[in-house]
């Protein structure tokens, strides 16, 4: 049978012929190619017939309610990253005025916006606010559930932030089945910072790397990265 380059060229030429975009010179080249190689000529004949058959092959339709089921399963608008970001921005200014001091010890607030999706695509939003942040254990209550769906199936969650970041991104492994987005805002040494994380893959039930984006001044970023390394691993109970 023909070598890879011949096959490649044949494929290009015959496809051009089918698509009607082949030049006269290419048509002649194809003709010569087929004349020189009987197996290619046979293939070309079968090709044309098969393309016709495949094109005419009846496609089946999905269920009539397919679109409705998809639309019912996709997250509600309130769960979108954009809306979460907007909410977070609103909270950030207020939070920045009240949260002062060092990263540990004094009042420090983190706000986690968790978008949760159950396996059956039942969705819920929890705004998880932690006051008096304690590095030895972060426990808090759901303080706002504006659009929450009633069902809570997660009992605990784990946030692992690796200090092996580069630049202004930190890779964080967050093995939470149900979390889609995380937002953290606050201040460190009187400087505002913000973290946000987006789950790159949407399906629940997978351990995936989040990319956490940090914004803030250069000095603060250095400190923050160090402190985040201390946080490293923390269990968060969702009550």
């Amino acid at each position: 049978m023909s070598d890879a380059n011949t096959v490649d060229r044949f494929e290009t030429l015959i496809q051009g012929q089918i698509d009607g975009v082949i030049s006269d010179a290419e048509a002649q080249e194809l003709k010569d190619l087929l004349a020189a190689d009987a197996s290619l000529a046979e293939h070309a004949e079968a090709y044309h017939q098969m393309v016709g058959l495949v094109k005419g092959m009846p496609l089946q339709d999905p269920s009539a309610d397919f679109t409705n089921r998809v639309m019912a399963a996709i997250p509600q608008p309130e769960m979108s990253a954009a809306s979460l970001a907007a909410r977070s921005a609103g909270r950030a200014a207020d939070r920045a005025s009240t949260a002062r001091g060092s990263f540990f010890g004094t009042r420090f607030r983190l706000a986690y916006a968790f978008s949760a999706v159950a396996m059956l695509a039942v969705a819920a939003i929890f705004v998880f606010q932690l006051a008096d942040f304690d590095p030895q254990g972060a426990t808090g209550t759901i303080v706002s559930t504006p659009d929450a769906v009633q069902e809570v199936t997660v009992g605990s969650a784990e946030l692992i932030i690796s200090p092996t970041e580069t630049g202004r991104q930190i890779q964080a492994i967050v093995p939470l089945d149900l979390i889609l987005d995380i937002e953290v805002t606050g201040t460190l040494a009187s400087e505002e910072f913000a973290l946000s994380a987006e789950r790159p893959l949407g399906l629940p039930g997978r351990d995936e790397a989040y990319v956490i984006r940090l914004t803030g001044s250069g000095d603060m970023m250095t400190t923050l990265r160090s402190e985040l390394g201390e946080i490293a691993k923390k269990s968060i109970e969702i009550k």
Partner: protein
Amino acid sequence: MKSRTDATDAEIVQECLAGDRNAFGVLVDRHKRVIFNVALQMLKNRDDAEDAAQCVFIRAYERLGSYKPEYKFFSWIYRMTVNESLNRIRGRRETTELHESMLVSQPEEATKATTDADLEDRIGEAMMDLTPEDRALILLRHYQEMPYRDLGYVFEIPIKTVKSRLFTARRRLCEICRQRGITPTGGLA
């Protein structure tokens, strides 16, 4: 003003990203048939294919923010479909044998129709003897007329490999047709 149904996929994606969730329904309606059939060709099971297609659309919606319009939207979701289907195939036990009732069923009337329609049905059945990847490749190339470049993106292989795989897949399909005695006028066999 351009109606939503006239809008390009890229325009609708922008509407979705701007917060119009319902716009996504247009994309689902537009692509569900081929997505479903690609999954069906690969999974051989209607329920699995429908479930896979649904997962693909849900994931696509969740990932719209990361979609980069270097490739067409449908190439992007076809890639997800191929990956989703392959993941499901890998998840199946090798010993699992599909019951006849689970196999892709063609509409009864189609088998009673004209000779051409019969041939089309039979080539559909013959395609089931190809590998899942080859079935999807042939379907996307020859039914959806997807360009080589997009096929390369969907299957994550170089264009040259796309061509050689297509060549091999078609040759294999020809052989299967011969074995099954599928002989259209002029004869595949």
